[in-house]
Structure formats: structure tokens, C-alpha cells
């Protein structure tokens, strides 16, 4: 064997380099071990905490939303379990977005544009859920849940949704719940609202949001890296159900009011009108109807863009509660302010006689009576009964604009009544101050006399007018109108009991109020309101016809019609004992007679279950009635 040839040359093996390599190994591995020791042993506790936070997330447990009942305990709304489809934008890759949206649109029978709009209007961050659809049928929800892999970022949630049992009957009062928007989330995030939350958006659902919502609970859930909820680890805080509301509204009265209003609107072929019924003694609103209206359920189930646009573009504004959100010239109903103010200030006495004329002259301008012949000499009672414009022009002149404005404010005009519904308009009570601030001029005398008959700059909401007459009817107590009677806790205990809220006591004498009540009764007894007097109930009231807008070819203005009435309990109008006051209002009502009077008459017939029917449909034909 040639062993020599196999012997490696001495230069081949270099022990020092082996040692150096070995040292490199030891240094390398020691370095790794040291770093590992630091991470795992020194910092191990901190990292363990991070790992726990990593896999767990605290998540809100929605509370049960409070219910809403009418004054008799009849449920007006129900909480229904429903499926909602949501998207977490961060988990939806841009490249797949079109395909996912198309598939969802197909499954949900939605317009892809609606889905894209929801994603783009995402109120939260890209990591928060965005609501896409509610009220999804179970089979569709199942399909979407099955297709998780093909629909990245899409989740199906079970949640409760509002169902409004009377559809459109109460929509203006109840409002609706809907998805929170970006502005709302920015405001409410601190109060625990979530990006995909629902909240009350109109009506008492909105004003009583805090009470109805309750308090969300908190749970710790395990999730995976893509945010999917795997299991609930711990409930940190139990949710507390929201309080329920008992409304002052009587469903039956609401139905009657709607029936009367609808009849008048249909017969007169009008689009928009209001009827509100109140108890003057308490300020409780018994019925409040505004047509046209909307369907709360459409909003609660996630309204489509198309339906929403239909509502939004309707010139009659069905989304507004015309009883409180809109303001109109009050017309002759405002003569209460002028008359009561002049009596209280001593500018006239109940027996002061002022001559009414076809018109009065201020400078070179003629201010006409509605009755172009005038009524001859009148006192406050007969002047109010005939609603003589020239009579009240002169009373307004005696009172002056400053005191007129003072008494208007005393009766609740020019400020929101404070009713517990959102978006109430304040109205306008013109005064020198107001006009100076608005137009940079003082009031002219011609404007003052116009203000005295509820024209010109005067505007008010139907509720303000009604509440002013309630104040007359109850003996001078201006009460805050209320629509929620009681707030009831989830355990059934009354959290907030009902009590009338006095805004102010009118600084006038009882006798002045008696005179004005009797004057209002005389409006009816003088047949100014046609055959209303023939109803076997003691009604007093005041009509109004308020011109607005632009003159037509014949020089006539379009006008709104008003009638505000209260029923005496004892039949003696000297007593402030009325428990029922009603206002009817018809917008842009060019009819032969006063539509508002007819609708109030019909409501009273229905309310008192009268056998007689004194309605006069011929008054509701198209024409050009202009009589205060």
C-alpha cells in the first residue's frame, strides 16, 4: 500500500484556522443565545403580554335598545333580530374589490353603487367595520357566510333592528334608527359608539338616543390575525338595556287626526298639511300628524339611495315634520297676540270701539281689510270674531311694534317651544331690534300693522300657534309641549315621571284672558267658521289665511290656511278648563273655503264620536278664498 501518497501535505491542515473557525462558531451561537435570553427570559413577560393582546381584542356587546309605547301602553316599535352584512376595508384587497362588490350586489339585490358608496363613506378607519346592508334574509346571509374565502373582508353580523309597527302613522314622531355617519362618529366615539353602530336619527329616537341606547357591555374575544372572532374569552362588562319611552301620543287620536287631515288633503287635492292635538292643561301632545311623510321602516332596514333620493327630492319635504321643522306666516291666528297685548297694556279696553274700514292709509299706501267693505265699528270681541284686518291694524298701531313683539314672545313666538323632538324652528317675531340686525333698518309703520295681523315678517310653526292658544285656553300658563310622557327603566320603574313644565305665567289679568276666550268663541258663534257652531260641543277658535310668495296674474297671492280651536270642558269660556286643543294647517291651499276649519271640524266629529256630519266639501274646491 502506498501510504505515503495518502499522507496529506503539512500545509493542508492549519490548526490555527480550525481554532479560528471554532471560535467563530462559539461567538456566533453565543451571540444568538444572549439575544434569545434577553428576549425570552428578560423580556419574556412583556412579550407574553403583547402576545395576549395580539390575539385578544376587547369588543363591545350591544345593549338592547329601549322600546317606545303610546300613552296607553301600546307598543309602537319592536326589536327584531336581523342579519347585517359588513365590510372591514383593510381586509378587502383593492384588486378584488370590484368582484366582491359585484357578488354582494348580486346576492343582496343591491345597486353596486350603493355598496361602493357605503365603503367610500366609511365613517371609521380602514380597520373598522362598515355597514353595507341590513335586514338581509337568512338564506342570503348563509350564502355570504359560506363564501368567506371568496369575499375577503366581508362579515355577517346578527344584530337587532327596529321595526316600526304602524309604518308611516308615527314616523314623524318616532323617527328612525340608522347607520352612524362620519360626523356622528367623530362626535360620539368617546361615548363608545362604534363605526358600524346604529343610532336614532330623527324623532324621539334621536332626542332620547342616550336613554334608549342603554350602555354597551364589553367582552374579550380571541381573534386570529385576520381579525376573525374565534371565541369569547371573558365578559368584562354586562350590557345594560336602554330605557323605554311612553309617549303622550294616543294612537287612536293619531289615527283620527290622520284620517281628518288625509280626508281634507284628498278632497282639496292638496299635498301638505299638519294637524296637532294637545291637552292645554298639561302640554301633552296627543296627536301630531304631518303629511306627506316617510316610512320609518325603510330607514331602519337601510334605505336604498333611490328611495332616499325620492324623499329628498320631493318638493313637499316628507322628511320634515311640518308641525315643528317648518315655519309659516301665522296670519290672523296672530291677532290673539295683538288683541291680548293691547288689552293687557291698557291700549284698549273690552269695550273700546274702533271703526273698521275698507282700508287704512299709511303714507300713500292702502292697507286693505280682507273684506273690502269693512265691518263698521267693532270692539275687541266682534273685531276678533270677524277677524277684521283694519281693526287690528289700528290696534297694532296703538300697541306699537316693541310691545307687540313683547307679547308675541310672552305667548311663545320667536323661540322654539322646547318640545322633545329634533330640529324645531324658532319662528320670527319682528321688532326694531330684529329688523336692525337683519336688514339694518327700523320697522316701518306699514310693517308694524302687517305684523299685527300675522303677515309680513311674522313666521311661526303650527306648534307655536297651537301652544299660544293652549296658553289662552288654560288661563295664561305657557307650558312646554311634551311628546314623551315618561321614561321607564328596563326594570319597569319610572325613571322620569310626567309633570307639566311651566315656561311662564302670562303677565296679564284673568279678565283679559276671559275676553279673548270669549272672542274666540264668538269666531265660531258668529258663523265666521260656517256651520262649526252646529256641532254639539263648545268650540272656540281662530282662523287664519296667510298670504305668502309671489302674486299670480290676477295680482293674487297664494296662501296657507289655519284653524286653531279649543274645546271648553264646562261649556263656559270664562273658565280656563279646556282639555283639548287642535290646530289644522294646510299649506298652499287655494280653495273656496278654509280647509283647515273643515279638517278640524271633522277631527272633532271623530273625537267626540258625533252622529252628525257637518263637513262642507264644497268649501274644499279649488278657488281663491281669502277671508281671515
Amino acid at each position: 500500500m502506498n501510504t505515503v501518497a495518502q499522507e496529506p501535505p503539512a500545509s493542508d491542515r492549519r490548526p490555527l484556522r480550525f481554532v479560528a473557525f471554532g471560535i467563530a462558531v462559539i461567538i456566533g451561537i453565543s451571540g444568538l443565545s444572549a439575544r434569545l435570553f434577553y428576549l425570552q427570559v428578560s423580556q419574556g413577560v412583556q412579550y407574553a403580554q403583547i402576545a395576549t393582546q395580539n390575539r385578544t381584542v376587547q369588543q363591545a356587546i350591544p345593549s338592547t335598545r329601549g322600546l317606545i309605547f303610546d300613552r296607553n301602553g301600546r307598543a309602537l316599535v319592536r326589536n327584531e333580530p336581523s342579519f347585517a352584512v359588513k365590510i372591514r376595508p383593510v381586509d378587502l384587497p383593492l384588486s378584488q374589490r370590484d368582484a366582491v362588490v359585484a357578488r354582494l350586489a348580486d346576492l343582496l339585490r343591491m345597486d353596486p353603487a350603493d355598496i361602493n358608496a357605503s365603503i367610500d363613506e366609511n365613517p371609521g378607519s380602514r380597520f373598522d367595520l362598515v355597514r353595507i346592508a341590513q335586514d338581509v334574509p337568512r338564506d342570503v346571509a348563509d350564502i355570504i357566510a359560506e363564501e368567506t374565502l371568496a369575499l375577503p373582508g366581508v362579515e355577517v353580523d346578527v344584530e337587532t333592528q327596529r321595526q316600526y309597527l304602524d309604518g308611516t302613522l308615527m314616523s314623524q314622531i318616532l323617527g328612525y334608527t340608522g347607520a352612524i355617519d362620519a360626523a356622528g362618529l367623530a362626535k360620539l366615539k368617546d361615548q363608545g359608539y362604534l363605526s358600524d353602530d346604529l343610532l336614532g336619527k330623527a324623532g324621539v329616537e334621536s332626542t332620547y338616543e342616550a336613554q334608549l341606547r342603554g350602555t354597551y357591555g364589553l367582552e374579550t374575544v380571541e381573534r386570529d390575525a385576520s381579525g376573525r372572532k374565534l371565541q369569547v374569552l371573558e365578559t368584562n362588562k354586562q350590557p345594560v338595556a336602554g330605557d323605554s319611552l311612553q309617549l303622550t301620543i294616543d294612537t287612536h287620536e293619531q289615527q283620527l287626526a290622520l284620517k281628518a287631515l288625509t280626508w281634507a288633503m284628498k278632497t282639496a287635492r292638496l299635498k301638505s298639511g299638519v294637524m296637532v292635538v294637545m291637552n292645554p292643561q298639561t302640554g301633552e301632545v296627543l296627536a301630531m300628524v304631518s303629511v306627506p311623510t316617510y316610512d320609518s321602516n325603510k330607514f331602519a332596514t337601510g334605505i336604498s339611495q333611490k328611495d332616499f333620493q325620492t324623499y329628498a327630492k320631493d318638493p313637499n319635504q316628507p322628511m320634515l315634520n311640518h308641525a315643528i321643522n317648518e315655519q309659516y306666516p301665522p296670519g290672523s291666528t296672530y291677532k290673539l297676540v295683538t288683541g291680548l297685548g293691547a288689552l293687557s297694556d291698557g291700549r284698549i279696553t273690552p269695550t273700546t270701539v274702533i271703526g273698521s274700514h275698507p282700508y287704512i292709509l299709511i303714507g300713500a299706501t292702502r292697507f286693505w281689510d280682507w273684506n273690502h267693505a269693512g265691518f263698521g265699528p267693532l270692539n275687541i270681541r266682534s273685531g276678533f270674531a270677524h277677524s277684521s284686518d283694519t281693526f287690528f291694524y289700528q290696534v297694532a298701531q296703538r300697541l306699537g311694534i316693541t310691545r307687540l313683539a313683547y307679547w308675541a314672545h310672552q305667548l311663545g313666538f320667536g323661540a322654539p317651544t322646547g318640545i322633545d323632538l329634533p330640529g324645531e324652528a324658532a319662528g320670527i317675531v319682528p321688532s326694531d331690534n330684529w329688523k336692525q340686525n337683519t336688514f339694518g333698518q327700523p320697522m316701518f309703520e306699514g310693517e308694524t300693522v302687517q305684523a299685527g295681523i300675522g303677515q309680513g315678517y311674522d313666521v311661526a310653526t303650527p306648534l307655536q300657534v297651537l301652544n299660544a292658544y293652549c296658553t289662552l285656553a288654560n288661563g295664561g300658563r305657557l307650558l312646554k309641549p311634551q311628546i314623551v310622557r315618561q321614561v321607564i327603566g328596563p326594570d319597569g320603574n319610572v325613571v322620569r315621571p310626567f309633570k307639566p313644565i311651566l315656561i311662564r305665567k302670562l303677565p296679564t289679568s284673568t279678565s283679559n284672558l276671559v275676553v279673548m276666550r270669549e272672542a274666540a268663541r264668538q269666531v265660531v258663534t258668529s258663523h265666521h267658521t260656517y256651520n262649526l257652531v252646529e256641532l254639539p260641543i263648545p268650540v272656540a277658535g281662530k282662523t287664519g289665511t296667510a298670504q305668502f310668495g309671489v302674486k299670480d296674474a290676477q295680482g293674487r297671492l297664494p296662501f296657507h290656511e289655519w284653524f286653531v280651536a279649543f274645546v271648553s270642558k264646562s261649556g263656559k269660556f270664562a273658565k280656563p278648563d279646556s282639555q283639548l286643543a287642535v290646530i289644522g294647517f294646510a299649506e298652499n291651499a287655494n280653495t273656496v273655503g278654509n280647509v283647515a276649519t273643515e279638517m278640524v271640524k271633522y277631527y272633532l266629529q271623530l273625537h267626540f264620536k258625533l252622529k252628525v256630519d257637518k263637513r262642507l266639501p264644497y268649501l274644499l274646491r279649488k278657488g281663491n278664498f281669502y277671508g281671515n
Partner: protein
Amino acid sequence: MGVLRIEPARAQPWSPRSLAVIWRSFDLQLTIYALLLTSIGLAMAYSNSVESGGSLFARDSTFVRGLMWAGLSMLVLAIATAFDYAWLKTLAWPIYFTNLGLLAATLVVGSGVGGTARWIPILGLQFQFSELAKILMIVVLANFLASRQGKLDSIWSILGACMLVAPALVLVMLQPDLGTSLVFVAILGGMLFMSGASLRWLGLLAAAAVPASYVAWTYLLRDYQKARLLSFLDPSQDIQGAGYQLYQSQIAVGSGGLFGKGLTNGTQDSLNFLPVQTTDFVFAKLSEELGFLGAVVVFALFVALIWRILVCAWRSRDPFGLLMASGIASLVLFQVVVNVGMVIGVMPITGIPLPFVTHGGASLISLGLGLGILQSINMHQARAEW
């Protein structure tokens, strides 16, 4: 001056007696350490399969595939052990060009993640030839440097070795696979060092690497590669992007603590916070579930393995054997340091597997081949005592 050299064939017949001698020189320790490391990798694959909830023995479960690759790898080891390594010297050039051909083919038909070309499908399995290329490059370099015995003080020996590696390195960089090309550099460096090449020239070369890496950084690296390389410095900087893996992997490692959460109990990986948990980031899963102690055991196995490889190098009277073993030792050391360093946040992210532990077919089979060659070297030294 040809680098090709024909070795005289060994005429001696195999006899029962010599077989026994041969078996005695088979380094059982070396194979056992490798097997233990592979088993730990399989345990991780098992844990992954359990956690992902699928059937453990489903055909495509991580565990079953891991078992299959481990079996194949042992077969390759056995065959390479029985094969006389001396033939490798004869076949060095064909091996070299086959290697380049495979890498070029990978570029043409290969597929990968995000527009890269790393894998070639063979029989329905994805095979990464750049893993095999590491071992083949060691063979070629060992042959070249062995042929330069006595001339290793010359700069030309070093430059020649560099020239040999350059084409393969460029082909891998084009895939692009930065990590593997760095492994080539590490192998080259380790083998030159152990070959006895002039330290002066090596030092100069290392100094030259500084401006060279500046040029590479500026002109060769793509933006995502730079982002990955830099993200380890501050993973929180880009937590949703390149830093995410690093951040999650450090949480996994750190939360493992001293004793770990127990096999299959890792939350970071079972909930998928940890990306590529059975391949490049397997060590994160390992240290989450087995803790610091488990990781130290793995380190100890690697140290023992490298020790046995160096023993093989020391024993070899043939410079080829010494160099072959040095190359494999360099490969293992470099990959361990870089892979583990990446997982624990002290090295940039590169797609370098953890030897034996990473569940990856090409890596396991290539290492099986490498160890087989080492065993062949071991046994053929023993035939003539010295």
C-alpha cells in the same frame, strides 16, 4: 494548469473485513445530530398541522410532506455515503455546468411569490434548485482549491475561486434571491479561509467588499429588498409592511419565555400572526412553543454538528475532503446565524432556511447529499490509517 484532474481509480476490492472498518469510520454522531435536528423540524411541522386543524395525515399536510422529504433525504444520504467521493473530483466540471444550467432553467421556467423565480415543479412538488446549488458549488470549489494546493498564497487562487462562484451568484441574484447569494459568498469565504489561502489577500478582498456592497446597495438591490434589509433595525417603523413579520416573530419568541408554551400551544402561529412559520420563521415557532431551553438544545445540536463536520475536515488527508467539509460547516454556521438572527431581530430578513429544521424539501435533500458526501469522505479516509 488545468483544474481538471483524473484521480486513479481505486483498484482495491471491497472485503468483509474492510467493510467493518469502513462502518467503524462512519460518523454516527454526525448523522444522529442531523437526524435530531430534522426530527425537531418535523415536530414543528406536526404542531403546525395540528394547529391548522386539518387532518394530520392528509396527503398535503405540512407534517406528511415533511416526513416524505425527510425520508427522501435519508435515502440521498445513504446513496451519497456509499458513493466514492473521489468521483466528484472527476465529475467536478460536469457538475459545475449542470448546476449553472439548473439555475438558468429556474430563471426561465421557475415560479415564486411576487414575480420571483425560485421553484421548479417536479412531479407536482416545488423544488428550489438554488438549495442544491449550494452543495454543488461546495464540491466544485473544493475541487478547484484542492488543485491549487501550494499556490494558495497567490491572489489568482482567490480570484479564480471568485470567478467560479460569480456566474452562479449572478443567476441566483437574478431570481432574485439575495439570501442564497449571500450563502454563496459565505461558503466561498469559509472555504478560502480553511484552504489556507493568503490572509493578506483575503483581508484585502474583505476590505474591497465594503465599496462593492455600497455599489450593490445603490444599483442592484430593489426597493423591497432594501426595505426588508432595513426593517430589522426598527420593525415598528413599518409595522403593516416589511416590519410586520419581524415584529410578530419577536413577539412569538419573547412570549415563549424560558420553558415555552408547549408544542402546538403557540398562539402567535396558530392564529396566523406569524407568517411562513414552517419555513423561514420556523425558529420563531420553535422558541415560542419550546422556550429558551428548547432553543438552547437546538443550538447545542448545531454546535455538535459543526464540530463533527470539522472533525471530518481535520481527519481528511485529502485537501478535497477538508475543503468539502469546511464548505458545509460554513454553510451550516452561516445559515444558522442568519436565519436565527433574522427571527430574533438582529439580522435582516432574507429567505435563508434553518438547516435541517426548516421544513423545505430542497434544503433537506441538499443537506442529506452534503452529509452523505462527508460520510463518504470519512469512510474513505479510514481505509488507510495514518
